[in-house]
């Protein structure tokens, strides 16, 4: 399978909703995934991301709306006819079957000749670097190995779409990072369309071509990782993707290219480029990432240092600003030596973005 | 006194002795089948060789043996109109209650020899029933426990200081069938002719005296002798057949015939039976002296037809409870009493069972 490129399928969701009783789990969702694309649904638990995945896989039926796989409506098609690979949160390896038995399972269902099954299983094991472990039972494998078996099983029948439901969530940090890289390489090799569901922004940003940020059953923003990071569509995305200081402000003055805001309950005024202003209201949130807060020797705002946290290469400082606090992060060698309990900072205009209040 | 008791008791059964039996019985030849119960085990074996096989040979009527069951199941079968057997063997006087409730057919005594009918003793046939075996509920004990001579009377059984050790009795919830109430009264000094009607209060007062020494109220006839052989108890009420059998086999057990209760089982033809005539023929056949002797040679149940003793060896007869010497020591149970209705519509067995449940849970 590694050699024969199954080009990925396209997926599109049109007006898909899901309602459980009185609870609207998914609000109308529009989503198009291109052929061979690696897309990630990012959100905290309860955001509806898993429900969308389950609807694509066919385990849940949408309340309304349509789902197309390669422009073919698949709502109503039972999961076993969808030909979609799924890797489950806790792998869902069949405990009574050996590793080889697990991987052969989808091939047997497709009535593949016995010899060919053996060959395909071997290839799949090789693909996920598990040669020679075919006779083991899943319970005899480590977590990372189990994850690879689950992946091999989901890929062995060459699905044109692969769904990953928090596939790395049960692994420790180091292994997770290693597998993230492997998965990404694998995606390049096989070209299958992948939809990854995760609550881990780092995972989503580092692996996916595009990321859909979800909250409360809605897609807040969809875009390339850099777009999400640099141009969040709203305060939620700004906060969820990377860290952001969200400071309540009052708009003092709007002009064609500038918006002047006052930090709430202070007389300090900050300028924001009009192109970075995403709100028309008088009361808003000023977003600035901790790395973008500029530390200055003179002038700027003198703020009291509340807490210092050493992170290795960087150091974070928590500063008191009015009633709230802001986080500033800078290379340790730059601010590590700063003494005293006052830090002077500026909010560069290029780093400020104005959002509606949450 | 014992003889007098016996006669009185026999009289108390209220048995008419005039049956429409001709001097020369009608031929038993026939066809078809008769469905019967055989009690299984050694009893069934004895029935087969002494009754079933010769009956089939003589009459051409086939004997079908249906498996054993309890009176409750038999009663239910008659009530549904599909009796399990043509002939059932009743113990504990249940034939009387079946007859009372209209669940039995009359036996046609014209198939009986006059001589056989007249020889029934101590239990007599009635319109609806005919005794088939007689046995004795007696006292069995472990002789090794009493080197100076074992207990003889029920009063001895109650005398725990003189005859120490555990006791076992039958369950009073069976009414008269396990003899417990009669035994308790006899132990308390009631004379055999004063037994009926049972004075339940006195019986329970008597039982109270020995309750602490009673290890167990047994639940099956085989259990009493087993408890003695296993030395779980020193004295038990038990049926003679099993005690003799165990003794013959070398089991350490002895028995006393004094004040033993003579009980009997009766044939009865179930209402709605498909082969009523064949059933009467079978009962007549099984009432013949020679056949009953054959039967008693196979198993230690006594023949109700006293003429059967003519065909039994002295040695064999000496082991059977109705041989005159032993008969004189014993008391015939009034089985009809236990089936008799009380004022509240319950029979004495039902009444005793309720009292018994109250007593043992007290």
């Amino acid at each position, binding site marked *: 399978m590694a050699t024969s490129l199954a080009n990925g399928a396209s997926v599109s969701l049109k007006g898909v909703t899901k309602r459980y009783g009185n609870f609207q789990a998914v609000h109308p969702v529009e989503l198009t995934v291109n052929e061979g694309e690696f897309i990630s649904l990012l959100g905290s638990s309860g955001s509806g991301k898993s429900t969308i995945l389950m609807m694509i896989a066919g385990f849940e039926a949408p309340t309304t709306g349509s789902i197309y796989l390669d422009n073919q409506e698949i709502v*109503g098609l*039972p999961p076993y006819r969808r030909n979609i690979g799924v890797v489950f949160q806790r792998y869902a390896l069949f405990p009574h079957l050996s590793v080889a038995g697990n991987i052969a399972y989808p091939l047997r269902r497709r009535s593949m000749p016995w010899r060919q099954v053996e060959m395909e299983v071997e290839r799949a094991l090789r693909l996920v670097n598990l040669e020679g472990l075919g006779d083991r039972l899943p*319970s005899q494998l480590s977590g990372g190995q189990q994850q690879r078996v689950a992946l091999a099983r989901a890929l062995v029948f060459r699905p044109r779409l692969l769904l990953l439901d928090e596939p790395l969530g049960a692994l420790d940090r180091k292994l997770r990072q290693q597998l993230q890289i492997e998965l990404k390489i694998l995606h390049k090799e096989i070209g299958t369309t992948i939809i990854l569901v995760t609550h881990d922004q780092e995972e989503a940003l580092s692996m996916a071509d595009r990321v859909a940020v979800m909250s409360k059953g809605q897609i807040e923003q969809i875009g390339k990782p850099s777009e999400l990071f640099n141009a969040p569509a709203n305060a939620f995305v700004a906060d969820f993707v990377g860290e952001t200081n969200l400071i309540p402000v009052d708009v003092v003055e709007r002009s064609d290219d500038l918006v002047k805001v006052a930090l709430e309950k202070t007389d300090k005024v900050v300028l924001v480029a009009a192109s970075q202003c995403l709100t028309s209201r008088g009361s808003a949130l000023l977003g600035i990432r901790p790395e973008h807060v500029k530390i200055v020797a003179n002038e700027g705002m003198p703020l009291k240092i509340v807490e210092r946290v050493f992170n290795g290469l960087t150091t974070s400082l928590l500063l008191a600003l009015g009633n709230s606090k802001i986080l500033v992060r800078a290379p340790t060698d730059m601010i590590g030596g700063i003494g005293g309990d006052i830090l002077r900072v500026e909010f560069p205009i290029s780093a400020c973005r104005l959002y509606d209040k949450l | 006194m014992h003889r007098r008791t016996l006669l009185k008791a026999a009289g108390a059964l209220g048995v008419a002795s005039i049956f429409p039996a001709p001097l020369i019985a009608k031929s038993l030849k026939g066809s078809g089948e008769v469905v019967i119960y055989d009690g299984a085990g050694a009893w069934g074996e004895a029935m087969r060789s002494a009754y079933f096989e010769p009956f089939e040979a003589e009459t051409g009527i086939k004997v079908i043996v249906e498996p054993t069951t309890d*009176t409750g199941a038999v009663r239910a079968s008659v009530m549904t*109109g599909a009796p399990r057997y043509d002939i059932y063997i009743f113990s504990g006087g249940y034939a009387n209650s079946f007859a009372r409730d209209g669940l039995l057919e009359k036996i046609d005594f014209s198939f009986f020899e006059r001589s056989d009918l007249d020889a029934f003793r101590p239990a007599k046939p009635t319109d609806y029933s005919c005794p088939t075996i007689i046995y004795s509920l007696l006292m069995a004990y472990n002789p090794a426990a009493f080197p100076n001579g074992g207990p003889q009377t029920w009063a001895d059984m109650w005398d725990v200081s003189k005859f120490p050790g555990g006791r076992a009795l039958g369950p009073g919830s069976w009414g008269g069938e396990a003899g417990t109430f009669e035994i308790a009264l006899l132990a308390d000094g009631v004379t055999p002719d004063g037994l009926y009607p049972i004075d339940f209060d006195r019986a329970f007062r008597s039982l109270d005296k020995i309750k602490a020494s009673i290890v167990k109220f047994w639940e099956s006839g085989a259990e009493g002798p087993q408890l003695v052989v296993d030395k779980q108890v020193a004295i038990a009420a038990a049926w003679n057949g099993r005690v003799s059998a165990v003794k013959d086999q070398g*089991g350490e057990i002895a028995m006393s015939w004094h004040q033993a209760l003579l009980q009997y089982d009766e044939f009865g033809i179930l209402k709605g039976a498909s082969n009523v005539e064949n059933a009467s023929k079978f009962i007549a056949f099984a009432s013949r002296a020679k056949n009953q002797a054959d039967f008693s040679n196979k198993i230690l149940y006594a023949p109700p037809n006293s003429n059967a003793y003519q065909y039994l060896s002295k040695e064999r007869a000496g082991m059977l409870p109705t041989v005159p010497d032993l008969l004189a020591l014993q008391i015939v149970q009034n089985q009809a009493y236990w089936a008799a209705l009380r004022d509240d519509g319950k029979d004495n067995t039902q009444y005793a069972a309720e009292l018994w449940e109250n007593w*043992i849970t007290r």
Partner: protein
Amino acid sequence: MPFLPRRSRHVGTAGMMAPVLVTLALIYMIPVVGLFIKSFQDRNGFTLDSYLNQLTSPAFLKLLVETLELSVGVTILCLLFGYPVAYTISRVNKRSAALLLLLISLPYLTSVLIRTYAWIVVLGPNGVVNQFLMSVGLTSKPVQLVFNQIGVYTGMVQIHLPLMIFPVYAAMTKIDRSLTAAAVSLGSSPASAFWHVFAPLTYPGIVGGSTLVFLSCLGFYTTPALLGGTADYMLAQGITLRVLRLADLAGAATQATILLTIVLAVFVLLRKRFAASLDDEASAPAPLKRGDGASSEPLLYGLQRRFSTILYRFGVIVSQVRNYVLWAVTAAVMFYLIVPFLVVVPLSFSSAAYLTFPPPGYSLRWYESFFSNTKWLEATWFSLRVSVMAAIASLAVGLPAAFALARRQFALKLPAYLLIISPMVVPQIVIAIALYLIVAPHRMVGTEHVFLLAYMLLGIPYVVVVAVAGLQRFDTSLESAAASLGARPAVVLFTITLPLLMPSIVSAFLFAFIAAFDDVVFGLFLSGRDAIPLPMRMWENIRQEIDPQISVVASILLFLVIVGYLAHNTLGRLRWSRVNGR
């Protein structure tokens, strides 16, 4: 299946419940309700007299309380002894587990009569236990160990232990051991990991096992009657007396109705527990994730890791000690379970014509008489055949219902569950006579079919209780995974669900089989010249005379099981080597 659209699920639920409900309606509800109606009637029409009589009878109330007490007591003891044994079995390899489970089911092979006799021998004044107590000087003269409560509990706990061990074991096999490891790595002590992580996950098994033991005890009176003393009289014994001897059907029906009402009321009062155990998806705790919660705090994580290493080492030591204790308890319980065979097998070779232990001499006479008697052989074959068929049929109608009960949401779920288990509560004699009154007019008595139906009634409650317990904590994502891999629902069922449910299915089958194979009560009513089950033959035999014959039957069954086990093992090994050799 979980991936079908919601609407069609309801049709499916009805379809899954229908076989069991129709079967129960025909062979249980219609007959028993008919009989119960009689308990409200007298010559003048409707009356509550029968109920007033019973409810004001001190004997009845006392029996009721004592019966419930004994049932609760036996259930608790079975849990105390059974839980560690199930735990041990769940930790050994599959082969040893199979052997241990087999040993546990051995007591069932002996008819209740010979088994209780063995206990009388063992516990009697000259028995092994008393000899031991006297030889170590704990007592100078024999202690009364039988024909009292000690005897009753000894016999009752022994026969009911398997009913507890199997469901608990089945629940334990489904627990991911990494969970406890995870809990330990997160800083809980092994003991606390056990109590807070492991034990709660075995809850469905405990509920299932306790339900079976408790219900079975309610109607079990032969063992208390034989091993108990003068005061050990059970409610079911009184009810049986009323049906079989006193011809008091109304009284029996009344007592049975009151017992059923009380037991069902207890279940309804505890319905939250049962509802929880019936509704797995809602109540299943979120799976523990290793490393979760630790990764966000590097400092704490490091500390925790260092601490947890120490804690874990300590835990390993503790669990080693506990292992010895565990093994000791397991060995003791196993010995307790098989001890009657140490009496039964020698007894079968006795030369005596009556039961006596030790036998005065040895011979094969009872084996000869068994094999030369076609009655015994026919009855054995009949019982084996019909019991196996009934157990399979019970699984066939019981399993779909268990699936519906454990996985579907539908109205009247708890009532349906209670209805299905209620045949275990109503004393069997009452069901038997009720069924008899219905089938007898149709000339069905004495047929194999009627036994098959009646035995199904015995098997279905076991199947449903065990299978519902087995379906708890069943990881449904495995079924979803199989579906996503291209398996249609039927294929998922046969390749994933049923194989994983096998420990529960096997124990359900075993219980259903044993319930049928051991049955005397239905035999009393339903047997006919061509349909006589083995227990009926034994019962006929022991009515008048107890001889070593019945110990032969038990010994032969034991022998067959051992041969079957060895054959299976050898075949299994052959297959194993073939697979590995290819």
